[in-house]
């Protein structure tokens, strides 16, 4: 599904990613851990098509060259990024945003756009699964949401858009214990043979709920170690010192 070869990324002449390789197949869950500033969010941003990065190397998504696709095309083709810091967008109603987003994706897929009624049915169902009060959805997008509420809203968007590749950038940070379980359940219930996850996290806690097939350690813009789920437990005990 995703094949990254020798990816380099620079911002303002600062090297952030330095020859990163990663392969993700459908049905797999990959976790990326690594010290602050090692380039995890940068990788997520580059995958989402954010401007401002000078990149080298190759990223293939289902055989297509990702660098040729705009951000919106990537999203329409099933790449989803749950932001580490979801943006507050004043004046934009959350429900209107969700509907515009879903219909843009549906349109690109050649599906019929949903009317308000059918849309609300979907939103109602998905938000209740996540324990999100409907009142939130009539508020301005993320404006004044607590840290945890913003993260839940990201997962709601994921569940509504039904992406193939979901990149979760520290979605667990800022969630309380119950919310963490709800979010993890959300991911687990969405997980299937066709879709894949790239989960960026600092904590083993999340990986107790969502069992990864692979854990990668990112350091100074490179994957320095790859292991199975046990690696997380080890890292929790020893820290990154052995790998960087």
């Amino acid at each position, binding site marked *: 599904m995703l094949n990254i070869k020798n990816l380099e990324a620079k911002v303002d002449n600062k090297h952030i990613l330095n020859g990163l390789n990663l392969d993700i197949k459908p049905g797999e869950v990959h976790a990326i851990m690594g010290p602050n500033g090692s380039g995890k969010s940068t990788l997520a941003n580059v995958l*989402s098509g954010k401007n401002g990065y000078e990149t080298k190397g190759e990223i293939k998504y289902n055989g297509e060259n990702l660098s040729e696709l705009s*951000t*919106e095309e990537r*999203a329409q083709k099933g790449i989803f990024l749950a932001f580490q810091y979801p943006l507050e967008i004043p*004046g934009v109603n959350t429900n209107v945003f969700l509907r*515009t987003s879903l219909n*843009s994706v549906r349109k690109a897929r050649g599906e019929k756009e949903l009317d308000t009624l059918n849309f609300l049915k979907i939103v109602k169902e998905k938000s209740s699964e996540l324990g999100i009060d409907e009142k939130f959805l009539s508020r301005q997008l993320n404006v004044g949401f607590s840290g945890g509420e913003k993260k839940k809203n990201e997962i709601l968007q994921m569940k509504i*858009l039904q992406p193939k590749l979901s990149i979760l950038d520290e979605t667990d940070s800022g969630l309380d214990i119950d919310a963490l379980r709800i979010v993890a359940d959300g991911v687990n219930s969405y997980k299937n043979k066709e879709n894949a996850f790239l989960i960026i996290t600092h904590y083993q806690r999340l990986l107790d709920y969502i069992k990864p097939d692979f854990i990668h350690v990112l350091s100074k813009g490179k994957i320095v170690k790859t292991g199975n789920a046990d690696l997380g437990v080890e890292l929790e005990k020893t820290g990154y010192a052995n790998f960087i």
Partner: protein
Amino acid sequence: MKNFYDFKVDNIIGLSSKEKEFRNKELDLFDKNGFPNKREEAWKFTDLNTILSKNFTNITNDYISLKEKKFELIKEFDHNYLFVLDGKLVSNEFKFEDKNKVSIKEYDYEKQTFVRNQNSLNLLNNALASGGYSLEISKNYKFRKPLVVYNHFSESIKEQIISYKNSLILNENSEIKILNYTDTNSKNNFFVNSFDCFKLKKDSSLKNIFINKNRCNCYFHNYQKSDLEHNTTLDNYILSTGLKFNKMDIEINLNEEHAKSSVFSALSLSSDEHQEIKSSLNHNSKNCQSYQKIKNVLNDQSRGVYQGKIFVKQEAQKTDAYQLSKALLLNDNAEFDAKPELEIYADDVKCSHGSTSGSIDLDSIHYLKSRGIPEKKAYQMLINGFLSEILEKLPEDNLKKFLIEKLGR
């Protein structure tokens, strides 16, 4: 330099000799000043004289209005209407109201109100105005439906100035919402110089909305003078105009306790449109409130100006006055200028003002795009979001819906 205008009081028919004398005096005063230029405080950011001299060769006041024209009524919401063609009241209908409570007449220039201030366009209006209407609403009468004033301009008008005065009297405890709907398809350039005088008697309320139906090449100037008595409310809503040049000069006098007034504006300007709001909120009595919020989205080479003045008289204690302008610049060639002005002589007042301008937040655009929303739509959403705070404040659901759709959002 040869003048680019030639105005004659004699072009106005049916004036008494007393009127003629008054008007000629006003015209002489205007001629001494000419059109406003940057030296005048009220026109600090705009040299109207230069703008007009570049776009007109000879402006005159000798237009002849064609006979009654068919016009299209807005279907989206029930309303009463006035149809005004080239400044003249042509027809009216108040089918939703008790007709005994509404008086509508042509403006009576024998009893006219005029202002003479540093704005020479007011002198010109005093000299040349004809047409216009006087509307009066009876005590305790509250309009059931809004009133739409269809301001239509003939396509035959070219290189001419159209001047008129309107008057509106709201008697005690009366209430009305007015939509000033300017409608012209003209590709010609012409100038409209109008004067509105509002009197709000005790406990009355007026909501006054301005919007333009389509783009045109006209230059507009409107002076609004409002006098507010005890416990009255006046809200002005200035929406996108599509006019080549538009200046709204608003003077609001809060003369008695508990008078309240707002100026809201949501503008989305493009190409070389120029839109100015100049306001003077005069707190002449204690316990009055004024609130101004101006939001401009500026694209291409458009230009927005906001000069907001708050004046608080010494006896106007417990004044609560607020003003804020925000501009969203979408192009490096667009410009927004704001000049707040506070003149406060009372000591127990709450007064705040501010102005910001910035460009669109690209991280927010990225966020929306990352959800599959095309870039153009993402920009539109952020722009709408920026203006929504004002649009949300528009009165009456059907009217509001109509206006928001008209603004293309």
